[in-house]
Each structure stands twice: as C-alpha cells, then as structure tokens.
C-alpha cells in the first residue's frame, strides 16, 4: 500500500466528473481526494486523483479511466519527479489573549492570515500534505472552528507533461463545452 497520485486530462464536456466519480464507486476504488480545475486550454480540464492502494489497483484505475471516452491522458505522478501541493483554509479560535501565539505559528509555517475577527483568524496554508497536517495538529489546541482543504494538485517537473497535442475540438461541439460539471 502506498499513496498514488494520478493526473488525468479530460475533455470539458458536461458530465465528465460524474463519469469519473461513478467509476470510483462502480469498481470500488478507494479515493482519498479528487480535485478538478481548468487548464491553459479552454477545452480541457485536469483532475488530480489520490488513492491509497497497491500498484496493481492503481494500474486498474488508470486502465478504467482510459476507457472513458472523455479522458485524454492519464499519468502516474508519484513515480516521476513532480511537485505536489494542497491548500487549506483554517479558521482558528484566537482572542486577544492568544492571537500572538497563533501568528507566530503561522510565521513558522509560512502560512498567511487572511481574515481576522474578534474570536478567530482564518489562515491560508499551502504545501505538501504532511506540512498541512503538522500545522493543523499544532493549532488544534487553540480550537479549529472549521476548515477546508482543496485536495492535492500536482504537476510533473520539467519535461514531464500530460500529452494533449494534436487534439482539436470540433467547431460545433466547442460551443457546447463549458466545464466538466
């Protein structure tokens, strides 16, 4: 068992996210996180999928993703040089008594405070999963009011890119494209 990070380039067509999500359920894949967003090309979105599994299971997911007509390219990012990031917004209980301590902690983690109120702070922190988890552990004693994480996103370093060359969307279909939702 290991953490597998897969990146998938998909065509922007309505329902693609549902197809991918349905695949996870249908074939019983255990997914830790899935994040989706636009790319530099209007007609493509990119998904980052993280799963805890053995490599046979990860291969099975890759093959099944490829069976989806809208999935253009899939890559294992954990097996090549890549950068991985996740962002969290954490609302930490902080009053005038302990605000300074929280701010110190944020400085150490290079987290940014993006909102302040009398009772709490909202902290924005970006990094690899471990950093985010360490930070949340340390602020937990102050009281985490609520938090949200984006799920991991990743890019291969240097020349490691997902292939989309040669793909030109048909004109009439381009009008119908918007997003994967």
């Amino acid at each position, binding site marked *: 068992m290991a953490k597998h990070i897969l990146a998938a380039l*998909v*065509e922007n067509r*309505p*329902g693609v996210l*549902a*197809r991918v999500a*349905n695949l996870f359920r*249908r074939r019983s894949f255990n997914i830790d996180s899935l994040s989706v967003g636009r790319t530099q090309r209007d007609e493509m979105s990119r998904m980052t999928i993280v799963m805890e599994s053995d490599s*046979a299971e990860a*291969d*099975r997911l890759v*093959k*099944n993703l*490829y*069976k*989806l*007509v*809208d*999935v*253009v*390219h899939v890559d294992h990012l954990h097996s090549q040089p890549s950068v991985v990031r996740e962002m969290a917004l954490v609302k930490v209980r902080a009053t005038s008594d302990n605000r300074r301590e929280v701010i110190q902690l944020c400085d150490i983690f290079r987290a940014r405070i993006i909102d302040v109120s009398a009772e709490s702070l909202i902290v924005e922190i970006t990094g690899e999963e471990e950093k985010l988890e360490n930070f949340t552990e340390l602020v937990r004693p102050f009281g985490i009011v609520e938090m949200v994480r984006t799920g991991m996103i990743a890019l291969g370093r240097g020349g490691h890119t997902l292939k*989309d060359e*040669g*793909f*030109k*969307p*048909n004109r*009439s*279909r381009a*009008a*119908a494209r918007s997003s994967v939702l």
Partner: protein
Amino acid sequence: MSDEDAATNREAVSPEAVNPPDGGADAVVLTGAEIVCECLLHEGVDIVFGYPGGAILPTYDALTKYPQLHHVLTRHEQGASHMADGYARATGKVGVAMATSGPGATNLVTGIATAMMDSSPIVCITGQVPTGAIGSDAFQETDVTGITLPITKHNYLVTSIDELPEVMREAFHIARTGRPGPVLVDIPKDVQIQEAEFVYPTEPIQLAGYSPPKTARARQVAAALELIRESERPIILAGHGISMAGANEELAQLAEKAQIPIALTLLGKGAISEQHPLCLGMMGMHGGAEVNHAIQQADLLIALGMRFDDRVTGNLATYARDSRKIHVDIDPSEINKNVTVDVGIVGDLGEVLRQLLDRVERRPNEAWFDRIAEWRADSELREIVRPAEAPQHPAVPEGKLLGAQVIRDLFEFTAGGAITVTDVGQHQMWEAQYYQHERPHSLITSGGLGTMGFGLPAAIGAKMSRPDQEVWAIVGDGGFQMTMMELATAVQERVNVHIAIINNGFLGMVRQWQEFFYEERYNQTPMVNPDFCKLAEAYGIPTVRVTERGQIEEAVNASRAQTAGPTLIDFVVEKEEIVFPMVPAGADLDDMIRRPTPAEFERQQRERAAAAEITEAETTEAEAPAAAAALGSRFGV
C-alpha cells in the same frame, strides 16, 4: 480515425441520403428529427426497433419521410433493446433501438446492460423532455444518461441541434469500434423540432480520448511465442472476441500449426467449428469435465478475447495454478483484472494472431492429447443423450422427455445449421452442450448479464437482420413469459422465427441450485403456466406440443416447413432434470458435480434400496438435511 473506419463509413452511405458525405451538395434545412433519420441512413441503418411516445414523437413523425428506415413496433421497449442486440450479434452491424423519455427509456435499460456485458454494438435513441424542462421533474422525465452511465460504453445528452450530426456519428463509431458496446443518445424534444442547416460532417472523427488499439508490440509477441515454445500442455481459451474480430480463420491456423487444443467460452461458441478435431468444447460451470480438467492441468493458457468470468474460472485461488498465462484482448482493463497473467497483449485479435502465426512453431503435443482423450472417455461414459436406438443410460427416466435430448435432436434435424438464440437457464446450458456450432455468430445468448427474457426478442432481431438464415429461439417456460408479448411483434412483422419452449414447469436452474445447495426447498420455482399452444393459437401462430422423443422430428420438420411468420413448439420435458456437470459457485474448476456412470448409478440404486429395507423409517429425515448442508459447505455456498 483509421482508414479502415473511414471505409466503413463510406460503405454505409445510402444513396437516398440528402447529402453525400463527400460533400458538394448544398446544405438543406432540416429539423433535428430529420437530421437523426439522415444520420441513421448515413450509418447504413435499415431497421429501427422501437416504441413511440410524447418526447420522441417528432422523430416518429420524421420517420414517415424515410421509408428506407423500417420501424419495428415492439410490445415493450425492453424488446426493442434486445431486438437491436440480436440484430447486432447476428451481423456485427450496429442495432438501433428507439424509445420515448421516462418509462420508455427506463424500459430499455435491461437490454442496454445485456449488450454492455456481452460487448454488443447497439445505439439507443431516446426522447427527452424539452431542454428548458430538464431537471424540473417534468412529465415522463428521467435522467436516462445518469441511469445508463455505468451500462453504456458512452452516452450523450444532446443540448443543441448544432452538435446533433457529430454526436450521431460519434455514437455509431464508438458502438462499433474497439470493444463494441451500447451507446445511448438522449435528444430533448425541442432539439428534435428545431431546424438547422444540415451538412453531414466529412472531417475525420476527432476523439482525443478514444483510439482502439490495433497491433501488439513486437516484444510482447516475442514473449508469447517463447511461452508457447516452452509449453508441453498448452490450451487456447477462445472467447467472444474471436468472432467479433473476425479472427476465426487465424484461430484455426494457430491451433493447427502449433497443435494446441481449444476450449470455448459460452459466447466463444462459433469461434471455431465444434467438429474441428482440436476443438474440445465449452469450459466453465457447465462446461465439459474434460475441458475443465485440461485447463486445470495445463502448463500454458492462451486466453484470446475472453475475460476470465467467474463462471469460467471457478475458484480463482486454485485456477490453472501450474500454468503460465497469455492474455490477448482489445480492452486493456481486462488484462490482469481477474487473473494475473505472464504476458498481456492489447490489440485487435486478428492482427495479433497474424503476428503470432508468422513465427509460431509446429510442435507435437501427443502425450497431452492422450490425457485429454482419457478425460473425454470418462465423460462419454456418463453421457445421457444417446441415439434413440442405442442402449440408454440407466438414469434416463422411462418414458420421459429430456430437455437435453430435445436440443440434441434439434441440432440433428436442423443439420446444425441454424442460428440459435437462447434465453437463460438450464435450456441455455443444454444448448451450449448439445448444439454444436460451426459458424461464427450462430449462437446468440446472454452470457454476461444472464438476462431471462432475452431469447424471443433477440431471435426476432436476429431473424430480421439475417432473413436468409433459419433462426430458432430456444427458451425456457420462465424466461419466455418475461417477454412473450413480443409474439405479437413477430406476427405483425411476419418474422419467421421458430420458437422451442423447453417447458419443465419450473425455474429449472434455480430449482437445481435449491436441490443441491438449499436442501431441496423449492421455494418459488414451480410455475403454473398457460397452455402455450393455445396462447400461440391466440396470436394465429402454428403450434404443436411434444411430449415424447419420437415426436420431435415431425414437429421440427413441420416448423421448418413454415416459411412465413413465427412457429411455436411446446416441448413438455422432465421436471427434475439436472444440468451436469456442474462446478458449484466458488468451487475449484475441476471440483465438479458429475452425473454418475451407469455402473455408479446402478450401485447407488442398489445401496439406496438396501438402506431403505433395513431402516425404513428413522434414518433419512435426520441425515438428509445434514448431508445436504455438508455438500453446501463443501462448495462454499
């Protein structure tokens, strides 16, 4: 898109189409519904199976302008999807089913799932409520693209008339290429009514995420050849993929050149003639014992276009333990899915087999064939279906008609030349055991999904696509009653399909499981049936009832003499017949429940009689359930 696909598309063009695909003609303004019809013509469609309703009415109205598209009115939308499936399986062409929104669309679902599991190319066109009403729980609205997401190869909700021609073209392309499968196109009513300039798209189909594989990598071919060279007990497992790829000739050549015996999956029947000396017959749960033994004892499995279904492997932990394995399939996700293989090859079977054939070596496997012959001799001893004049197996009940006999005799009296379409259950397994197929696409059966009710409508579809062929629907009394309303369709369309009901008054296969694994509690399996002959008469269908083996020939000949419209024979067979051999679910493939040999059977009879004499009352009641439970636990059910 490959040149090959382009050629298929060109051939498919009908002369009546408004715009020839090579362009030139001026664009015409058509409604969405007319564009659907135009696209069907461009794809070479001649028959559409369907059922009208509100949201698809514009398209039904447009059909009146396209007499080249023959519409078959089914009696239930499930029948339409099964007929399209049967049509597709008999020819390899894409079958088309059409239905309205909501209940029309949901009724297609079983047929779509059936086609998905058996990789059958069909395109389903459904009406949808107008785009503005989608999501509002409008009358007869259902999210059919959502419902069919996991049971289609791909599906579309068309939201603009501008994308309609491309969607239709992609739908057929995806359905028929690669690993074929069902594609659904959901078209809102307003899109069917809107008008647009129609120019049939001529540019190649651009699907960035879809390119079916063709040839195998040289390194993989070399690795496969090496395993074949090193093997002493090789066996080929031939599946549905052989006939779908049209690789029948290459399969025979490979087997002959390297002297490798061939086992067939259920859908693999027809991959090679079952009369071929290297063809062993069917494997799996109700396969030949000699075939299952051969697989378990082999040192090399060469799996071609099959997917190691659990009905074929039995217990995966003990499956062909001592063998190395080569797996060739067009779908990469099948490789290492159920069975881990030594060499996995992704490609078109015809191409890959030609690559292998170039360099495969001729090699004798005499000792291996001798072992298989021994297993076969044992099977023959236990055989229950024998020529009427030969000495019968003592287990044959006096004066009873056996389902297995009916199939064997049907095989004989149709000279093995018919296209047979089965339903699901005991009769299906007897068909697989006793009707020997010689040609590809001559057995049409629901293998993966096991859909009861498939038989009659699929047979109608098959006959309509191959009117020159003799078509028999072999069905059980249970499955027949699930879709027997399609008798009316057969009559209305004058479809010359011969229906053979193997009628034992039971859900026979379920009854068999209850006998073996549920201590003979026959819960909900006995059936009160209508008089099937009177039912046929109500539809004006010629019919006859057969209750003895001696009547089979005359009944079959009388049916065959009818060359217009359907016929029906009600074969009233022994109620408690068992399909032997049987690998219980989850058991090892060679751990089969066998029919006793004549000697074993007679000894069992004597012992039973003796035991009954000694302890008349007390014994059995306490012990029988315990024995049945022991049998059940032994097989892990």
